[in-house]
């Protein structure tokens, strides 16, 4: 089993089709409204007057995101019951036998990864498809991506393979949690913290994530 698993997302290749979202929901039989993997849309732009002409600088790109199994997971630190844990392989998971469903992990995660399961009354989150990894199979989201925008592997190996990229908007500051996530920027990517999006710092499709 790989150590410190991480996801790679190529924003240049991602078309926002949400196959990864559906594959994850299907595999884990998630309830309505619970999405361990989500596709963020970031868009903006405006008309500019250049001389006697109007030009536009409209942009839009997608980032598929789930739990990043961070180096310094704030959800684990904040959990009052110690239900949120990081296992020996570096996967952050929820022990359903301890979780009290207080939502504190959800508030502490800058990526909104832990999500409430109303049926269980407890929190739930991406476990990196641990059963698949044990069988040397890829996580459901990676396997389902039609444009091969997703990849996975040990964090160090992925860094060697794809390099280390700067975080792009609208992702939060990586210093907060040191996420095991490598994002290949889109050609239109805005730097982290940019306010160029239509809704300021926020994502363009909040109702979908």
């Amino acid at each position, binding site marked *: 089993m790989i150590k410190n698993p991480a996801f790679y997302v190529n924003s240049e290749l991602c078309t926002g089709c949400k196959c990864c979202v559906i594959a994850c929901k299907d595999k884990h039989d998630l309830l309505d409204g619970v999405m361990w993997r989500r596709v963020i849309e970031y868009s903006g732009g405006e008309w500019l007057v250049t001389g006697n002409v109007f030009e536009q600088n409209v942009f839009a790109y997608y980032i598929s995101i789930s739990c990043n199994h961070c180096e310094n997971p704030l959800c684990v630190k904040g959990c*009052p019951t110690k*239900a949120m844990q990081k296992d020996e392989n570096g996967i952050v998971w929820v022990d359903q036998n301890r979780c*009290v*469903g*207080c939502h504190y992990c*959800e508030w502490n995660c800058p990526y909104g990864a832990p999500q409430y399961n109303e049926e*269980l*009354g407890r929190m739930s989150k991406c476990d990196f498809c641990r059963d698949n990894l044990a069988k040397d199979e890829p996580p459901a989201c990676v396997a389902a991506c039609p444009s091969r925008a997703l990849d996975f592997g040990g964090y160090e190996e992925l860094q060697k393979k794809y390099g280390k990229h700067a975080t792009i908007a609208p992702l939060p500051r990586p210093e907060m949690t040191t996420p095991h996530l490598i994002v290949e920027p889109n050609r239109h990517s805005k730097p982290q913290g940019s306010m160029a999006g239509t809704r300021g710092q926020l994502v363009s499709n909040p109702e979908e994530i």
Partner: protein
Amino acid sequence: MEGFISLTFFTVLGQTAAGMAILSAVFEPRNDQQRYPFWVIVSLALMVLGGIASVTHLGYFLHSLYTLTNPFSSPLSQEIYSVGLFGGLLFLSLFIRGLWLRILLALSGVLMVYVMSNVYTIETVTPWNSSITLVSFFTTAILIGAVFLFAVDTFKNKGNEEEILASLTGWKTIVIALAFVARIVLVPLQVIKASTPVNTTLLDSQLTLTGVAVVLGFFLIFRNALRELNQKETCSVPLFTRMVILCLILLAGELCGRFLFFSRYINFGM
């Protein structure tokens, strides 16, 4: 959002109980001759109601004992300990009298309000992550704590309008006014500190609601009360009823303000 309603009640009621303990230790440290002080009973009732509200926020109550297992890392776990400490000392205050217990109770109240604010002062929820949260929680404790001590006095002196009027012109009114002024002062301070627009909006909405409640309540009650003091006229509504209305208006204003605080939560912290 439903979860936030229960947290609104839990935080406001808990802070009110703490405020009552702090203010009574500061202003009436030796006034504890009664065996079952009425204000302690009221504080305890508020803590019990707040406790019930907080439990309804949990998805799986049966695991709640596990919340005591991470006090060194989780502010939420620390909050539960501090609530337990304050509640325990409050319960002891029903039976045991003494200055040392009053001081200990007040200190545990301060600790509880401080730890409560720590729970929400988190980097990932920008609108909550500022010193406003701490100041706001303490002003709630002082403002509504004084109002409830006021209500307790009024209840004890029911029928004795002179005593109620005396209470109206005493330290509790000054504390209520000061706590409210503290809130108003916070606005320019925040602007100077270049706060985010969201924080300013949050504070504005809290201020507006509490402010409307305070101004309305004081206008309705103080004006007539002071006129009565000067024996210019009498009001057909008993003073006791007006005091109860004032307390309820203030509490409602505070609950609305706190609910707005919670509604500023942003799911995806970006």
